[in-house]
């Protein structure tokens, strides 16, 4: 009877093929995130360029890393804020394409779960809210082999656009 109840309330473990698939998904995500130093530098420069449009930051102490967590891999950005930019209006172009890092075809572009981003200006202003005001964004996927080629062209166009943006900000262009 007890056994029957146990099987009723504890469903059997998933088949090993499901486990294999899930383990592969995570390990490949982590493999793909072994970005080349150049790509990581480009990612960091882009992130800093975007954030510096809203707040004044200390880019010499900024740190962008990937963190492997229990069920996902996250982009962890620790960027010290030195002041708030005085603005009357939000920046004209508020979006920088996420596919930016797809320019490097040897490595892989990162897809993030924008819905569950924990970037929160309130938290960032309150230094106690999170350590060093670090923002952590779960990485949900890496642009797959099939879509990589398709996106390359698009990314190149976007890259040209963002280079123009970077130049406007007086930063060296990163490609």
């Amino acid at each position, binding site marked *: 009877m007890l056994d029957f109840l146990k099987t009723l309330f504890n469903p059997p473990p*998933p*088949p*090993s*093929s*499901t486990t*294999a*698939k899930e*383990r*592969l*998904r995570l*390990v*490949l995500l982590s*493999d*793909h995130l072994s970005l080349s130093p150049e790509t990581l530098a480009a990612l960091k420069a882009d992130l800093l360029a975007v954030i510096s449009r809203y707040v004044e930051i200390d880019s010499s102490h900024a740190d962008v890393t990937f963190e492997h967590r229990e069920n996902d891999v996250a982009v962890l950005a620790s960027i010290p804020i030195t002041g708030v930019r005085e603005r009357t209006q939000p920046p004209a172009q508020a979006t920088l394409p996420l596919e930016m890092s797809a320019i490097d*075809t*040897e490595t*892989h572009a990162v897809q993030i779960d924008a819905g569950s981003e924990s970037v929160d200006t309130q938290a960032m202003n309150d230094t106690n809210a999170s350590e060093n005001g670090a923002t952590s964004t779960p990485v949900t996927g890496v642009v*797959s*082999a*099939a*879509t*990589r*080629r398709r996106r390359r062209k698009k990314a190149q166009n976007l890259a040209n656009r963002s280079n123009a943006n970077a130049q406007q900000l007086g930063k060296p262009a990163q490609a």
Partner: protein
Amino acid sequence: MSGRRIVVTSGKGGVGKTTTTVNVGAALAKRGHKVILVDTDIGLRNLDLVLGVEKRIVFDLVEVVEGRCQVRQALIKDKRFESLSMLPAAQTREKEAVSEAQMTTVIDELAEMADFVFIDCPAGIEHGFRSAIAGAKEAIVVTTPEVSAIRDADRVVGKLTAAKIPLRLIVNRVRPEMVKSGDMMSVDDVCEILASELLGAVPDDEEIIDTTNRGEPIVLDELNKLAIVYDKIARRLEGELVPFTTFDTPNFLSRMLTIFKAG
């Protein structure tokens, strides 16, 4: 005449690259195409053994590259399939004996002599892999439904994509009954994980061990179920849209229906 240059690669060793090369090549030769198989696994050559021509080797790939013989002199013609021949790798040399540029030259020369040139790639992603893919315009990635083989295949898929070489997958050693019971990843799972197009799924079969022991391509036996699978792969390479067989064991009703339809 400029034939297609297709590299057969996998990352991980022992997944069936050479067996696939031999059987897909033989299936195409059987269909009337002129096919040349090239063993680029220098130091660990095996294509000669799987094809059963190991006693007839005179010259090898490295000797061709070093200009000691003409490429035609090094080619070994298969006695069972008239339009099939192979170029053996050197057994006592290092992988570095052939550069990427030298490989490209040899493959280009062979492509002038055949409809299909299959380049059997060594395992790994180092020098041997790089020179093997240098002369290729298309790729077949062979993998099995196992975590280690798929992870390595993923690395290879990344490298091939970076080198702008289009690729398709052959999922080897599929065990339908295990897929059905959830103990093995399905062919669809593998394609999804690797985000790649399927060229063929080959069921695990003991008979392949037997035919390899004898150095005979399994496609010699037309009625063998693997011979049918390799023939379908050959037709897909020709460009024909051959539907993929699902390996699910058909139940009684569907089996009856098939019999009625056939009759």
